[in-house]
């Protein structure tokens, strides 16, 4: 049963990927990519990696999908949607040969892999020192906190990079198109109903993340979705990129994280937590990160500044 399910799932994944990569209609490709992302999340569930499944569904399928739809819209507005005809055959041939070679190499490498135990046991042995029940959170914010620190700064840098694309004449203005909706329409009423629920889910995900699947990145994505919902339903517009409170929210999480790391360095152990307070410190960092990640993701989706009012 289980193997049959896995094989069917993998077949669907490959089919969705093929349609996303080589489908004729570009918008269709984007839609299939989102379907593909959801299927990949299912694959992670099947492997029992719930944290990754949540991250893949929320970020890999959700946010990336929204981004790609936004890019499609932007290309359409610019009249730059590339034609959907297939590439010429020599290109396809070379690409297919390269793909076959790469795939063959990777499969050879997989087959030649010696069995090794990985670090499951080591993590289980050591995570007690951080007083965390979720081993993935223990790795993300404990053992390999430096990766996570750099990664949050990659997000901040990406936002600066996206903002750098703003046309100068609208700098300081508002990103994304303006959304309006009838005050008594479906959008507005749903837009009022869903955010409190989303907020609840988001806070729950960080809170649970210490011991169960979840964490700052998954929660931040949910909160970003709430933000986007509010904007889409026309209840509030995006903030100006020049807004100081907004910028403070963006840097708060990484600043707390980096500050904790540097404070540790002054105390003798960079990115180390004081014994006995590791869990508290990690939870504080996670809450701060969640808020910043939510704002950063929402603004990455909104894109460069586009209008002054």
């Amino acid at each position, binding site marked *: 049963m289980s193997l049959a399910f896995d094989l069917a799932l993998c077949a669907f994944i490959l089919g969705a990927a093929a349609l996303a990569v080589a489908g004729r209609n570009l918008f269709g490709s984007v839609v299939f990519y989102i379907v593909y992302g959801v299927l990949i999340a299912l694959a992670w569930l099947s492997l029992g990696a719930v944290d990754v499944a949540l991250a893949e569904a929320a970020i890999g399928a959700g946010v990336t999908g929204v981004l790609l739809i936004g890019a499609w819209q932007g290309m359409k507005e610019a009249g730059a949607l590339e034609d959907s005809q297939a590439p010429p055959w020599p290109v396809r041939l070379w690409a297919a040969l390269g793909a076959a070679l790469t795939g063959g190499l990777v499969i050879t490498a997989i087959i030649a892999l010696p069995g090794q135990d990985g670090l499951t046991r080591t993590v289980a042995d050591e995570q007690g020192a951080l007083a965390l029940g979720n081993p993935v959170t223990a790795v993300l914010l404990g053992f*390999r906190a430096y990766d996570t620190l750099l990664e949050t700064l990659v997000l901040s840098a990406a936002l600066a*990079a996206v903002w750098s694309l703003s046309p100068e004449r609208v700098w300081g203005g508002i990103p994304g198109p303006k959304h309006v909706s009838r005050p008594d329409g479906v959008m507005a009423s749903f837009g009022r109903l869903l955010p409190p629920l989303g907020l609840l889910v988001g806070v729950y995900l960080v809170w649970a993340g210490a011991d169960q699947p979840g964490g700052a990145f998954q929660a931040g994505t949910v909160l970003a979705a709430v933000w986007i919902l509010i904007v889409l339903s026309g209840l509030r517009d995006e903030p100006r990129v020049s807004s100081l409170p907004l910028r403070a929210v963006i840097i708060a999480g990484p600043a707390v994280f980096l500050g904790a790391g540097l404070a540790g360095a002054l105390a003798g152990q960079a990115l180390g937590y004081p014994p006995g307070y590791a869990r508290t410190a990690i939870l504080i960092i996670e809450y701060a990160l969640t808020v910043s990640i939510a704002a950063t993701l929402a603004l990455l989706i909104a894109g460069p500044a586009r209008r002054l009012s």
Partner: protein
Amino acid sequence: MNLLFALAGAPLAFLLASLIAGRHGARLIWIAAPVITALAFWLALETHARPQGGALGGWMPPLGIALEADGLGAVLLLTCALTASVTGLFALGRYGGARPESARRYTFWPLFYGLWAGMNAVLVSRDLFNLYVAIELLSICAVALAAFGSRQAAVNYMMIALAGSLAYLLGAVLIYAALGTLDMSLIAQRAPEARASVLIAAALITGGLMAKTALFPLHGWLPPAHGAAPTAVSALLSALVVKASFVILARVWFEGLPGLAGAGVITAFGVLGAAAIVYGSVLAITQTGLKALIAYSTVAQLGYLFLVFPLAGGGESATPWTAGAWGAMGFHLSAHMLAKAGLFLAAGLMIYGAGGGRIADLTGLARAMPVTSLAFGLCAVSLMGLPPSGGFMAKYLMLIAALASGQWHYALVILAGGLMAAAYLFKPLARLFAGTGTPAIRALPHRSMALAPLVLGAAAIALGLLSAEPYALMVSGLPEAGEAGLEEAEP
């Protein structure tokens, strides 16, 4: 280890500070430049006694991440700090001042610090996945800065960067799957257990990093991106960014997988490096635009770095010339950082002053912009490999290693490369002094801007004059057999 984390963390802190400081963010460079340079200098002093390093948070690899700085790392961190500091101060002329915030005046600074942070993080890390995150931080900032000049070139750069990082990541993942670790020293211990998988992983990592380093024939994205960018950005991209991926490549082969490189791999690196030198130099000679010439010169100069693989013998066993080749790599990396940044800054000033970017526009400019022209000349001396400069030390050590190891064909390439560098650099140099009379030029926003390339050029020369200390530091981590190479290579 805490000092190493501070070096990686300080630019990150300035990244965040510049995001919140708005139009005052530019002034942060007055703090960032001395602070980070001082930290790097302190590290170099500490490393002089012994290599620095340790596990972050006390979590030893394979579970945690260890930072490490050997002599080479310390020298590169210091050179990088110097280059970034001077370039950052130079950039005040365009992205600073009391003017109201604009998209570029605001975003330049976080991207600049992000790039610096990515460089430092790459130079101190020995963990394959951590290096991945670090080089992505570097890439995203580099591409965004390149888009300040040409968005088309930036898109092409981005695509290569994306492909390169995926190949690298796939290799790193396979290494973990095979060996259960991402730490280089543990990889070195365990690699023989899974030779086949590790070799494929190494091939993927190498391919990805070669694309990011713009090694011939994967160099196509570089000249448009570096040539079209604003002055300070060109300097950062050409001097720093392409070095990061090479340093990872060298560390993977020499520290992570010593002995894995067969003769074929080593020869392939050597041949590609030699081809890059010849191809880049020939194209540089044919350019009519000043910045395009300098950008193609980068393609050529990157080729020298890959000659280190055959010259050092692939790291399999320490030979008498290993230290020489390793030192040559360190000198070439540092000297090219300083000289190329200085060359781009000087070129930017001259193009601004002359009002045109063709080499022909430079006629007689040496009389109108003597300081800038002097800086250009100093940087050119190092790039050509003329004594007494850091570039000379690099090429001299390479020649010694090539002859000592009996690989005279590489010696020929190195000599030919030096001659061709002289040929393409004499084109603009000759123009600077051509004609009579002083051409009218547009005044620079700040006269002191001309000091920036002068400092870099002088540093590139000083690296040759005071070569003993950096050389001793750079080869300090090498096995004892290297000592013989040191004596033989002493100029």
